[in-house]
């Protein structure tokens, strides 16, 4: 594949992934959160394939398949079940209002550009232009985790953050060894399951998914 086209496609894919991350900030219902996450993961699996093809690395195809199964099928499914069990709560009152958080996310992406500039400057990779976008996605994921009130939306934020890390790793190194990557994925799965248990307990104790309620544990 010619490098400029590859660079163009990777930039496009990263932009789409970032947009899906930003979509989280704009939507309120958990359903939309899950959908955005699903789409983002789909874009990422496709990018694994593209990067694998461009770098002629067979392992990445396997990664893409694994990624797809885990993040497009399994986790969204469990998220939906979780939602059914505890009832869908809308993210109606985030700590920072939606318009402001959107603008902040735009500024975070600018910050990502500023931070990754030395990296981009020395890098020779055709994907270097997309590194700031991946970094931006990580920031946006973190921002979601920090500013949302509901446990479930925070979980999705965490998953998006993880996607951002995967994207950065993929673009920066063309895929770290399969075994490490698998370990990371399993970690994520375990982390997710653990969070699921927490969510059930928070719900059972407080009859709500509002993380604010945890403040009451102090007394």
């Amino acid at each position, binding site marked *: 594949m010619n490098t400029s086209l590859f660079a163009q496609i990777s930039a496009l894919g990263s932009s789409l992934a970032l947009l899906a991350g930003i979509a989280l900030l704009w939507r309120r219902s958990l359903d939309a959160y899950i959908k955005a996450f699903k789409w983002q993961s789909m874009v990422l699996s496709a990018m694994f394939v593209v990067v694998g093809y461009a770098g002629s690395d067979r392992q990445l195809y396997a990664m893409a398949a694994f990624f797809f199964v885990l993040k497009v099928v399994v986790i969204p499914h469990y998220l939906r079940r979780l939602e059914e069990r505890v009832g869908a709560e809308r993210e109606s009152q985030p700590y920072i*209002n939606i*318009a402001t958080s959107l603008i902040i996310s735009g500024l975070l992406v600018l910050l990502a*550009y500023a931070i990754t500039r030395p990296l981009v400057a020395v890098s020779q990779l055709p994907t270097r232009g997309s590194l700031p976008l991946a970094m931006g996605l990580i920031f946006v994921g973190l921002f979601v985790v920090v500013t949302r009130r509901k446990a479930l939306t925070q979980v999705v934020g965490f998953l998006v953050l993880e996607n951002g890390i995967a994207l950065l790793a993929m673009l920066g190194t063309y895929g770290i060894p399969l075994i490490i990557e698998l370990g990371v994925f399993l970690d994520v799965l375990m982390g997710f399951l653990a969070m699921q248990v927490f969510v059930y307990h928070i719900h059972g104790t407080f009859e709500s998914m509002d993380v604010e309620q945890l403040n009451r544990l102090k007394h």
Partner: protein
Amino acid sequence: MLTLFVVMISAYVLGALAALLSGRSAVGRALVAAGAAFGSIAGLALGLFVIASGIPLTFTSTQLLPITGGALRLDGLGAFFLVVVGLVGCATAIYAFGYSAQYAGRYSLRLVGVMFNLLLLALSLQVMADNALTFLILWEAMSLTAYCLVLTEHDRSGTARAGVWYLAMTHAGFVALIAMFLILSGADLTSSFGSMRAGAALLSPASRNAAFLLAIFGFGTKSGIIPLHVWLPMAHPVAPSHVSAILSGVVIKMGIYGLLRVLLDLMGGGPAWWGGIVLGAGAVSALLGVLYALMEHDLKRLLAYHSVENIGIILIGVGAGLIFHSYGLMPLAALGFISGLYHTVNHATFKGLLFLGAGSVLHATGTRNMEEMGGLIKRMPWTSLFFLIGSAAISALPPLNGFASEWLVFQTLLGGSNIPTPEVAVVMPLAVGMLALTSGLAAACFVKAFGITFLAIPRSPEAEHARESPRSMVAGMAILALACVALGLAPFAVVPRIGRVLAGLGGLPDTHSAFTLNLSLVTPNNFASMSPTLVALGLLVLLGLVPVVMLVFRVNRRLRASDSWGCGRVGQTPRMEYTATSFAEPLRRVFAELYRPTKELSIDFHPDSKYFVQSIEYRSEITPWFEKALYRPLLGFISLLAKLTRRLQSGSVHIYLFYIFFALLILLLIARWS
């Protein structure tokens, strides 16, 4: 040229003397106005002459004999600001003749007349100061005369408080300026600007940076950049309206003059972060200024907040210019400074016009509260027309002057892609976003200001019985309205002149050639071109053509006036109208996180049934929280200091005499061993 200078000074002085001698008679008022008007016109002519000829006006020391240590020199930059002073001064002087009639017997016309002339004199000389001492003395003269004028209506609530804030802030800035000049001149305040220019290049970076920060603080307090603006929305509205026009149109521009003189001329520019700070302060002032203006229903306070906004826009241009200057991108730097200066003169005209218009409304209705106005367009046709021109100009609507200068500011920022370091370059799109939001909000705000004040049905008996202002006031407004139109239609004539004024300052090239094209305004590198003149012409042709075409096609021309649609209710009352508060309500909700309004709602129910409401009281207030956060600790600290110093004040004469004696001893001892 010297003749013009002498005419200018003597006219102002005679105007002040006339005020002192005549008091409250109509002839006296006419003489005062004539003095100020002739002085301004002479100043205007002098400024234009210096700009056109390109020869600075210099004085030999013998010509200035009575003032020892004083040094005057009028160069292009000074001449440009002298033109601004003259233009607004002349219009307000004529306006003042009619406007100040209402003060006779209530307030001291003597004080107003003397101080008004002296303020204009101080402003005119300010831009000629050629050493630090002269500059500082005139600066103080300007501040003090303005202070006296602010206090004119001393018995109204809020005036005294505004005066104290103004005095305190302006002197805090003054102290910073003294310190700055001491650094720049090597502690010799009488050394001329020329030698300071040479000396400034040799200063260490640390002292240059210190001087920069002091300049930003000192000139910033005068210009009212956020967060140093607190005094401005208090002091400008309480002054007599023609003085408000001078304060908002001209006096705050002296801060811009000072910044350009010191940063660009004397220090020859600096590192990119200087420009970044100026640009940032400008962008924040512009946006917050207009946002707070939107929430005001006091017409003059609203205009005062818009001054903060426009100073911000000017500083965006100047800051971008400084950034480009630091990278050696001279044509773009020149464009930045030109856009700033162009907006300076434009803002002087339309803000002067708007304040005069607001004064005319105040004169007719006796209130500054927009919620009590309405329907004035039928009662005050001229005032409303001029106010509309001012509103359209300040909202940057083509083809008026506000658009031409904001267009240039935009073009400057678009040049940001030429900056080699992306961390700095990224500032430019952000500034574009903020500037665009500012101008959109300004348009919304002036739809409110004009629509609520002048349109629809009167909301109070005062507005119902309003009459058009006397002819002198209308004439004053007409001058500035014409200036707005002319400056907007002829940027091709104005911009090259401003370029020439700036040429040579801080190594800026003469960009004259880059802007000459018959009717268009072209930016350097041929980046974009635009012609407000032809657009205005096209709009006029179309406006004439549409009715003609409609006539040709025999469109139904009948017209009938009837009641407004009231959802079936007949008999419309003013209570059904949208108010200023309700107009701004959507924006208040959009920016609720910034405003943090407090709400109080109390409903009185009928004693028998809660379904019948007797009265509803709704109160909502917005207090700028960042002002509180910044100034409350400062004020606390100051009053603590004051409490401590009070211990010295015992009231006993002997103690005071002892202080004097003690101080004398200390001074003598210091003098002995130093």
